[in-house]
C-alpha cells in the first residue's frame, strides 16, 4: 500500500525519551523519540483503558502508560507480556531532521 507521508515537524520538536501529540481526524497520535533518536508513532490510546501513551515515560523502545503502567512496545504497538493488547502503529520516517507520518495504521490491530 502506498503511504501518504505528511510532514509533522522536526526531530528537535520532540523531547528525547518523550513524545508529542499529532491531532488528527482519527484521534490523537503519539509520536515518540527514543534515546538514540529513533521515532515511532502509536495511536494515543493504551489498549488497557485508553490511557494517553504520549504522556508516559519512554524507556528503550517502550513506553509506560501513565494510568496503570502497562508497557507498550513502540515498534509494534503490542503490550509487553504478560499484558495483552495493542495500540495501532503508524509508519513514521525521518528525512534529515524532518519527521514524516503516514495516517495509514498497520493492519490487524483493532484498537
Amino acid at each position, binding site marked *: 500500500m502506498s503511504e501518504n507521508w505528511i510532514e509533522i515537524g522536526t526531530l528537535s520538536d520532540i523531547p528525547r525519551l518523550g513524545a508529542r501529540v499529532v491531532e488528527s481526524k482519527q484521534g490523537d497520535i503519539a509520536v515518540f523519540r527514543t534515546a538514540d533518536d529513533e521515532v515511532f508513532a502509536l495511536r494515543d490510546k493504551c489498549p488497557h*483503558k485508553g490511557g494517553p501513551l504520549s504522556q508516559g515515560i519512554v524507556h528503550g523502545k517502550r513506553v509506560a502508560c501513565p494510568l496503570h503502567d502497562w508497557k507498550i512496545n513502540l515498534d509494534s504497538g503490542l503490550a509487553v507480556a504478560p499484558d495483552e493488547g495493542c495500540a495501532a502503529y503508524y509508519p513514521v520516517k525521518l528525512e534529515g531532521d524532518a519527521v514524516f507520518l503516514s495516517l495509514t495504521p498497520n493492519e490487524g490491530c483493532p484498537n
Partner: protein
Amino acid sequence: MKEKLVLIGNGMAGVRTLEELLKVAPDLYDITVFGAEPYGNYNRIMLSPVLAGEKTIDEIMLNDEQWYIDNHITLHKGKEVINIDRSAQKVIASDGTKASYDRLLMATGSTPFIIPCPGHELEGVIGFRDIHDVDKMLEAAKQHQHAVVIGGGLLGLEAANGLMQQGMKVTVLHLMDTLMERQLDSVAGKMLRKSLEDRGLEILMQASTKEIKGQDHVQSVLLEDGREIPAELVVMAVGIRPNIALAEKVGIHCERGIVVNDTMQTFDPKVYAVGECVQHRGQVYGLVAPLFEMGKVCANHLAKMGIGRYEGSMTSTKLKVTGIDLFSAGDFTGGEDTEELVFQDASRGVYRKLVVQDNKLKGAVMYGDTIDGSWYFDLMRDATDISDFRENILFGQAHLGDSGHGDENRIAMMADSAEICGCNGVCKGDIVKAITDKKLFTLEDVRAHTKASSSCGSCTGLVESLLAHTVGGDYSVAPHLKPLCACTEHTHDEIRATIKEKELKSIRSVMDFMEWKTPDGCSKCRPALNYYVMCAWPDAGSDDGQSRFINERAHANIQKDATYSVIPRMWGGGTTPEELRAIADVAEKFNVKTVHVTGGQRIALYGLKKHELPVIWNDLNQAGMVSGHAYGKALRTVKTCVGKEWCRFGTQDSTQLGIELEKMTWGSWTPHKYKMAASGCPRNCAEATIKDFGVVCVDSGYELHVGGNGGIKVRATDFLCAVSTEEEVLEYAAAFMQVYREQAHYLERTAPWIERVGLAHVKEQIVDDADNRVALAERFHFSQKFAQDDPWQQRAQGAEKHEFEPLKQLNA
C-alpha cells in the same frame, strides 16, 4: 558458532537458571539438558498435594516438553550423566549419549537419606523425592493398608498426611521428642502432633528403627524398644544429602555439597552449580527460594554480564498440610543473650513465639495462625528495631494502629471473591489461580501477571501471605539482594550512598557508574534516580523532566479520561473572598465540570484539557495563587483547625502555625506524597495523628507526631517528642522531613519507612542529637532555596511550552 551450555539435572534449580538465562541472553548458547527423570520439568514441592490427591501430575508441570522445543533446547530425559571429561569438555550419559560443552551447569539436587538398617533394601521401602516415589505410594495405597513413615520432619509429615488421605493407616516414627524439631519448639511441636493425631495419624516419638522385616516385600518395622509395627510400605524421610557423587567422581571440589563461590562457580571455572547440590559459604539449602536466587545470579554470569553475587539467604518454612497453619523462620531456639516473647491460646489452638536479641527479631515460630509470618520475616531480614512496638508485636501487624484491615486479614479464611488489591480490583481467587496455573513463585511474578500489589502496594503483605499459603515454603529473597528494579542489581540504599559518595549528579552518570542493565532504565527506576540525584544535589544535580511521572512534568493530576485537575495552594487551609472569586471565575471560564473540596482542605477543579493548563495557571497566579503540588511526590497540604483564635478549646494558634509550616515546606520534593496537620488542642480536629507530620497543641506547648497515614492502610502516628516553642516545631519539622527525604526509599511513605527502620532510629537522629537536628534542618532549608519557585508561574510565562501544545494539528 554459538557456545554450548550443558545442564545436568532437569530439576527446579537448573531449569529456573535456564529460564533466567533465556530472559537476559536468549541467543547466546546452544543448550542441552540431561535429566535422570523421564519427564519435563515439574514443581517438586507440589508432589505433596499430588500425593494427597489435591493436584494431578499434569497440574504441577512447570515446563512441558514443548517448552524445550520452543526454546531450541535439546532435552535428554531419562538419561543420567555418569561421567564428565573435564579436559575434553564432554559429558557422557549412561546410555552412551555424549555432549560437549563450553560451560557446564550442575544442578543434581539431593538424594533422600536411607537409614542403612537391616531390611532397608526390601521391596516397599522408598524415599519421597520424585514422581516415581509418588507413583509407588499411590500404588501401595490401592493394594495395602499399613504404612510407616520414618521421620517426623516436614517431608515425612507431608508424606504421612498424603498416604492417610489415600486411605492408608499411617504410623509416623520420629527419633526426637518434638515433631519437626528443626522448625518448631516443643510447644508448637506438641500442638502439631495433637492436630495430626486428631486427624487419624499415629505418631510414635523417640522411636528408633532397629530393623525392617519382610521376605521380599516389607511386612513390618521393628523398633529398638521391641515394638513391631505392621507395614506394607515404608517411607524414609529422615533427611536429604546433596547429590555430589558425580562431581566428586570427576574431581570437582566438594565438601558437604559442591563448593561454589558467590558467582555460583565451582573450582573448575567452566563448571557452575546451583540448587540443593551446592554448598555456598558453608551453607546447603533445601528450599526453593534460595535456589531461585542462585539461579538468577548464575544466569547473569552465564550471560557474561558479570554482575550479581549470591550472598546467602534466610529461609522460612510452612507445612503444606491443608488445614494446618504453621510457620517458622530464623533462629527460634534462642540462647543466653536472647529473650522470648510468647503468646499462647490453647483453646483456639494458637501459639506464637518470637526470639528477640538487642531489640531485633531473630526467629519466629507460629502455630494455628500464621497470617503475620511474612511480616515477622520482613522484620528479621531488615533487622528492624522493634522497641517501639514491642508490647504489641505478638498480636501482629494488625494491632499496630492499622485499623484498616484488622481481623479481616485472615487470609486463609477469606472467600475467593474477597478483593485483595483494591487498586486493580484483583480478588483472592484470581491470585491463587495465577499462582497455581502460571506457576508463580515470587511477588514480582504475581505483580506482573495479576497486577495485584503493583499500584499503591498496600496489599503487598496480603499477596505475600497468599503466595506463602499457596506455594508453601519460602518464596522471598534476602533484602540486601532486593534491587531497585530489574534494570539493576543494586538496592535503593546502595544507589543513594553511591550518588553521594561518587558525586553523581545526573541519572546518566548513575546508570553508567552503576552499570545499568538497560540503556535508559524504566518507569520504575528513572523517577527514583531523578529524586535521589536531586535530593543529594539540590544545587548541582540535573533534574530530568522526562524521568518524572506526567503529573510532575505537567504540574497537574492526570485523571482517568486523560484530562487534568488543578488544585491551587491554600495556605493552612485558609482562603479569602478574592481567591474564591478567582477560582469561581476560572471554573466558569473554562467550563470546569467538577469543583470539589479535597480531604486536605483545598479546592480542586476537574476535567481540564492539557493545553488549557497554562492559561488557567495564569489566571490563578493573577489572583495570587500558586501550585498546590497536589500532583507531586512533594509536600501536599498542611491541614489546620481554627485553634485559639476562634475555638473555645484552642490552646495555641494552630492555624498560623500551619501556615508557617506550609510556607517553610511548600515546593519540596519527597520520596512520596507528604502531608502535615496542626490541631489546636488534643481534640485534634485537624486529624494530625494520621499525617506524615502532625502537631497537636497543648497547654504547655506542642506535641509532635510522625509516620501517620490515612490511606488504605490507616496508621496512627508515633509520638516523636514534645517541644515548647513554635521555632522548635519548625526546626523539628524541617529536620524530620529531611531525614525522610534523605533516607527513605522512593515511593515509600513515612509510615512504612518508620516501620522498616524503627522509630528509635529516627528519634536518635533528631531528638537525641541536637547538632544533627540543626544540620538536617539546614540541609532542608538549603534545598528549599532551589525548590520554592512556583512551577505554574514559570509555565504560565512560557516554560516547557512544547509540553502543552500538540506537535501538529491535521485536518486529515
